[in-house]
């Protein structure tokens, strides 16, 4: 029994390029987000109305999370953080559609996102202190703490990715068990909790932890 991502076909027929169902749903959600973003910003005007209000609400909601933790640089980090917020949130929500599995229920997706955040964190640290100054920061206050600091830095993407993966997969396993015991009506509130509420909270937390890592590297 393998409840994880199922291999659908191989890209170009190569054994080392498997295409799983979570990857396909991930591509689908990227396309839907692109179409939505294009549709919401079709006709921008000074006085917002209709769909432009929705777009501005989303942007302001994310901006208000960044600005208190990275003062003065909210607009610079908005595209990166908003991409994480919207992609993770939409990936969690798309699991509500019957027959589709959440792309975030796959460790490959979450670890990929966490590694992108890791690279950005290192870049921002080096941009703030210079390459040598940033590396020297690991050996403070005493040189003996160097291995511990390096391990602590390397553990960040692991805990970051496992948190999202564990939450989504844990909810999915509980819902699958309930479906086998009681297929009608009882799973509905569980879907509302695990897919909607936990999914939204986890998307918020994934983005907020990314902001916190960046602000720790810069301070």
């Amino acid at each position, binding site marked *: 029994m393998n409840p994880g991502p199922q291999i659908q076909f191989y890209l170009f027929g190569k054994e080392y390029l498997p295409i799983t169902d979570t990857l396909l749903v991930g591509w689908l959600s990227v396309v839907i987000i692109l179409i939505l973003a294009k549709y919401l910003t079709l006709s921008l005007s000074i006085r917002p109305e209709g769909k432009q209000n929705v777009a501005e609400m989303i942007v302001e909601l994310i901006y208000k999370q960044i600005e208190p933790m990275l003062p003065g640089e909210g607009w610079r980090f908005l595209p990166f953080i908003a991409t994480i917020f919207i992609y993770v949130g939409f990936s969690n929500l798309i699991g509500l559609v019957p027959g589709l599995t959440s792309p975030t229920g796959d460790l490959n997706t979450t670890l990929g996102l966490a590694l992108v955040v890791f690279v950005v964190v290192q870049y921002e640290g080096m941009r703030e202190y210079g390459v040598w100054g940033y590396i020297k920061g690991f050996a403070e206050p005493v040189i003996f703490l160097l291995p511990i600091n390096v391990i602590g830095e390397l553990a960040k993407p692991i805990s970051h990715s496992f948190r999202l*993966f*564990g939450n989504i997969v*844990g909810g999915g396993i509980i819902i699958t068990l309930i479906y086998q015991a009681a297929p009608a009506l009882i799973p509905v509130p569980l879907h509302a909790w695990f897919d909607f509420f936990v999914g939204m909270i986890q998307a918020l937390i994934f983005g907020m932890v990314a902001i916190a890592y960046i602000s720790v590297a810069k301070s």
Partner: protein
Amino acid sequence: MIEFSPEVAETVITTASYIAAGAALIAGVGPGIGMGFAAGKATTAVRRQPQARGSIITTMLLGQVISGSTGIYSLVIAIFLIFGV
């Protein structure tokens, strides 16, 4: 030295990994207590300073996330033990 047949060995390994998966989830106790403690403190803080509600909730969520990771680790290990063996 007693030789076991492969079926017996496989059954023993499966049983042991299921028991270990159940035991790994005992780790869920600690994060539960810790996150509840943080939420209680945040409630007190909001009562004292209702105007700082937004930043208190943000700080509480970040702290709960960090302290909740250990529970998630145990869940991931349990999943690996059940489906990986």
